[in-house]
Each structure stands twice: as C-alpha cells, then as structure tokens.
C-alpha cells in the first residue's frame, strides 16, 4: 500500500473526475434501464427486465446493429488500409512532406457536423459536385441519389467517415514508422528481400502496436457513430442509416422512452466491452518487440 501511494496520488484527481462523469452515469443509466422513465421525472416505476425483453424483439434495434457493424467494419478496414499506405508514402517523401501531411490531416481538424454538412452538398443529386462531374464526363448512368438511395446511402456515409478520420490514423502509423530502425530494413535488403517481402515480414510486424491501437480506436468510434448520421441523413431515408447510438437517442429524446433508451445503451456498452476485450487479447498476441 505504502509503495503504491505515489501512484494512487497521481491517479486520484483524474480518477475522481472519471468516476463522477463516467462511472456514476453508467450506473444511473443501468438503474434507469429497469424503469419506464419518460425523461420528465415524476411518475415512473421499476419494470424489471421488460425493456431488455422488448429490445430482443425490436426489429428497428436489430437493423441499427447491422448498420452500425457494416459502417464499422467497412470503415475500419479501409481507414487502416489507406492510413498505412499514406504513412509509408509520407515517410518516403523527400519533398513537400509537410504539405502532404497537412492535406491528409486537414479533414480531421473539422468536426463531423461541419464535414457532414459540406458533404450533403457534394452528394446532392441535382447540383452536387459528384453528379456534376459525372454529368460533364458523360457518365450520366453513374449519377446517383447518394443520400436518398436506400442501397447506397450507408456507403455514402461510410465514405465521409473514412475521409474525415484517415488523417488521424495516418499520424499514428507515421509515428510508429519513424521508430522502426533503419538497420533492420537494411539487413533485410542485404538478405535479398524485395519491397513487398520487406513490408510483410519486417515493417508490418514492427508496426503492430500502432495497428492494435488504430484498429481498436477505429472500432470503438465506429460503434458509437452518431453525429455524422444525424447531420447527413438524420437516420434516413426511413430508418436506413440508423446506427445504435442514433436509435438510443431517438428512443430517449424523441419517443420519450428514456428507460428503454438506457436499456439499449447498456446493451451497446456490454457489446463494445466484449468486442474490445476480444480484439485487445487477439491483437496483443501478434505484436512483436525488438
């Protein structure tokens, strides 16, 4: 105990803030999830596991899980792919390094609300930039109602998430890349490894700490997707782009079912926890150290 005192002392202020603003609300939410609270106080009662039972038969909720997983998996896969690519290219650039780094990181500076708003104009059917370019190129058949067509709207939103986030993940890869010692790569070159072999057998394994962090951060933020959907589609058309987080907010503040919304939030919480733990355990195993 005595030995740990300094650590406890250092952690205490942050821990107290964390407990008050994160742990306590989670427990309050857990309590609320067993009630039929409508958000206005006064009359509500404990209804046991009824909210959870309802959730199991709620098609809209299950659909929102599908949408969320689709957005998360597709965006995380592509974000990591592009971020890794950009990081390697940036690392090897001789000129204008700062310029390109700024360009790639720039969208990250803007909030999702701003980004989403800009993209609704780019996606507009009649005078949006994308359809305009297709029209000018004579590719009329490629022109789409990007935010209105139920079949593609989820991907339109995912693209914006990728565009906005890729810069952040690039920076993490870049930081990791710069710690890879030149000798190791040099040794591989001497051993006769080609570029791809060097990447696959030397570079990528050494970058796995960054990959672990990036994948998990990306996955968690994907599962929480809300603001970009709220701004770009408001969950629509219909319920086609409703994510879990969006569904929770709608239940709690639009439909006045805060008890039910809390139950859904608890399910999301458990889901994110399980997925994160599995991923951390798996990804940590394959990390290598010099």
């Amino acid at each position, binding site marked *: 105990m005595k030995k740990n005192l*300094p650590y406890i002392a250092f952690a205490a202020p942050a821990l107290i803030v964390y407990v008050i603003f994160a742990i306590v609300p989670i427990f309050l939410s857990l309590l609320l999830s067993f009630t039929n609270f409508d958000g206005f106080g*006064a009359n509500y009662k404990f209804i046991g596991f009824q909210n959870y039972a309802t959730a199991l038969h709620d098609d809209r909720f299950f659909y929102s899980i599908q949408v969320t997983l689709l957005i998360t998996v597709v965006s995380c896969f592509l974000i990591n792919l592009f971020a890794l690519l950009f990081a390697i290219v940036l690392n090897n650039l001789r000129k204008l390094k700062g310029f390109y780094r700024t360009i790639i990181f720039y969208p990250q500076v803007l909030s999702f609300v701003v980004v989403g708003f800009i993209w609704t104009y780019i996606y507009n*059917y009649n005078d949006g930039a994308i359809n305009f370019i297709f029209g000018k190129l004579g590719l009329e058949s490629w022109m789409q109602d990007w935010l209105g067509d*139920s079949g593609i709207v989820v991907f339109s939103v995912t693209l914006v998430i990728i565009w906005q986030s890729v810069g952040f993940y690039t920076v993490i890869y870049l930081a990791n890349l710069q710690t890879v010692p030149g000798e190791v790569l040099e040794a591989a070159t001497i051993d006769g490894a080609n570029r791809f072999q060097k990447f696959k057998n030397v570079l990528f394994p050494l970058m796995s700490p960054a990959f672990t962090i990036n994948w998990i951060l990306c996955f968690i933020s994907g599962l929480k997707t809300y603001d970009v959907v709220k701004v770009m589609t408001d969950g629509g058309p219909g319920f086609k782009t409703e994510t879990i987080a969006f569904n929770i907010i709608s239940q709690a503040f*639009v439909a*006045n079912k805060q008890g039910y919304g809390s139950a859904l939030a608890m399910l999301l919480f458990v889901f994110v926890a399980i997925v994160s733990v599995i991923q951390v355990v798996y990804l940590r195993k394959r990390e290598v150290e010099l």
Partner: protein
Amino acid sequence: MKKKWTLLLASTMLLSMLAACGSGTNEQSKENSQETEDTKKTEETMEIKWFRQEVGSTRNKEFYKKIEDKFHELHPNIKVVGVANSSNLTVSEFLKTSLASGDMPDVVTMQSADEFGKANALLEIPDHIANLLADPEFGRTGGKLYTMPYKTDVIGVFYNKKVFADLDLSVPKTWAEFTDAANKIKEAKLTPLSTSGKDSWVLGMGGLWPLVGAEALNNNTDYPKQRASDELTFQDDVFKSALNKFKDWNQNGYFGKGVLGMNYQQATEQFTSGKAAMYIMGSWIAGSDLPNLKPDFEVGFFPLPSDKGVLGYMTKGTEGWSVSATSEHKEEALEFVKFLFEDKEVYTSLLQAEGAFSTTKEPVTYEMNEYGQAIMQGIEGIQPYPLPGFGLGETAWAPGIDSYLFKILQNIIAGADVNKEIEAADQEWSRLAN
C-alpha cells in the same frame, strides 16, 4: 532512497496542486463578494435565461439582443440572457435534454406544450397574461394554459406566377385541377412540387399534414381529434387517402429526382430559383432569407384543394412562450412573457421576422413583403382550419409520432407499401401513447 525521493516529490506536487486549487477558490470568492457588492448597487440584478431560435439573418443574435436590452431598460433589475440552440437537435429535443440536466432556461420557445405541461415542466400561465390572447381558451391541456401562442402560421401552396402564366394555368380550385396543373408543369420539364426528403419535417409540412387537413375537411373535420383520442386510427380513410395521395405525387414524379438527398435550404432554393413551380410551405418563409431570388420572380399562394374544392386553409398556432416550472425567478419570467406581447414594437418585430399573423386580442398588422401579401390574397374569404398532427389539448397527437410519420414518408418515397407503413404507424402510436 530513490523511493523516498519519489514520495517526497509526489506529495509536494500534490500539495502544490491543492494549494493552487485553494488560491483559485479564494480568488473566486473574492470575485463573488465583488459581485454581491455590485448587485447591491443595482438593487439585486437577476438574470433570466431566454431560449429562442436563432435562424438566418432575420432572427439572429442581434435581433434578439434589441428585445433583451429593451426589457432591461424597462426593468433595470432584470437582465435577460439569450440562449440559442447551437446543437443540431430539434427544439423539443434540446428542451428535453436541458430539462433532463436540470438546466432548463426560464422562458422558452415551446412547440409541444402539451407534452411538457403534462409532465409538470411548465408553469401555468395566469389569467391576466392569458387574457392578452384573442382566444385564451385555445390549446389548454386539462383546462390549463402552459404556453402563450404568439403567432399563427399559414400553410399552403406557394406558386411561381410566371410559370403559371407561361403554361396558361389558372389557380387550382379542386384536387383534379391541382393534379392537372402539376402534370402540365412536369411536361414543361420543371419540378411541379419542391420538397426536402432529407429534412423530413418538410415532407410533413409540405405534404402529409396539408393532405390530411384537406382530406379531413373533405370527409370528417373531427378526424384529428378522434385520432388523438384513439377513437379512430391511421387505418381511417382520411389518413389512408392522404398517404396514398402523397405516394401518387411521388410516383407521378412531382417531387423531381434526388428528393431524399435534398435539404430544406435546397428545396427552398429550387423554388425561388424557378426550377420548381410550386412549394407547399408555411408563412415563415416570408420572414426568412430567400436565396437566389430572380428579379422577374413573382410569388402567389393558394390553399391546397381537396376533392370537393378549397374548404379551408391550414393554420398552425401551437408555438408559444412558456415559463419553466423550475425557474427561480417565476414572477420576472412571466413579466418578460407579458412584455413580449404588450410591447407593440417588440411583438410586431417578432411576427415580422417569421412572416406570421398575430394571436392577440387586438390584432397586430405590419407591412408585409410579397410573400405575406400573396398569402393575404390567397386566403381571402376562406376559413382557417388547424393543421392536424400539431394540436394542443384534446387535438394533440401522441408525442414523438410526428417524427415517426416523417420517416414513413421517406420510406414511401423509397417505394415502401402504404398499408404496411400505416400498420407500423398504428403500432408505434400505441407504443408511444403508453
């Protein structure tokens, strides 16, 4: 040895941090005492928070600042602090979250007085203020008035007079004439009806609600009330045929292409730039910034006709000023609400900014722009009818059902089956109402 040093360092830092906190508190308390002295000087200045919507350049911060300052001049001990909704939540969502966090402003713009009133979140408006209204009995919930409706909006069809003249169209007086005009506009390669599928409330305001209203006037004027009391459901002919007519508009291509990706601003621009010939909207566009207005653009207005003809025009008078039940300065807040009605200059400016019509016992008029004048001409000699779905008191529909119905409209544009959507809507109603 090393450990001792670490411990010493850690405790010193912790102490210095605590000391820093301490001095902070001291300074703060000094400031506080300073404030108390100041307050004493101005005979206990108190602050009341006023939540209102900041929209475009007509209803911006400066616009409200003038009102806030004027009140402060008349009541030097009360300072009104404006609160704006800087999030992208709707007014009702914003108020619910502020209520949940115990931070509801004292005076608020209220669009769902019924819901908030029943939850005891609002103060009952006393008679001496209620009597400023032309109809103090309007919109009471269980006999109690929770909001002071300050404006009446008129909802109907705005049309481009030039397009109508070019195509030799007259103002439609029946449903058949309306459909006929829309078809001719479509043949002329223009969008007949501008609307926004992305901001789905526009589909409701510029589609479903006026359609339900016209059907109700045509078949059963009590439908909104009977739906509210569960006497009738969405399966009723009034609602069903309104929804089918909406579906037909979309299937006949009246909305044009890409409607689900279009937002409210874009829909408005489509009309003002002459690409769309008609736009079903509320009188508030008269008070808002209108983009791309062409010099030869001339606007007209007519109420949406039903099968039997124009039987009324839609009005929406449910938005008002309310006082939070948790306000610490209830008397002052009520005084401010009274001021918003009694001060002619302030009241007129509020109406003008929204292109709205007055609700006071003594009607207030002002010089209207071309949109307002078009509305005045369009509704002459026609009786008003309250927009269904936006009622107060016994005509109030289940809270949250409007958002759900807007989603259904998007589904229908995307090709969903009307009957299935109606079934789902009835199920959602019973879930929301219980």
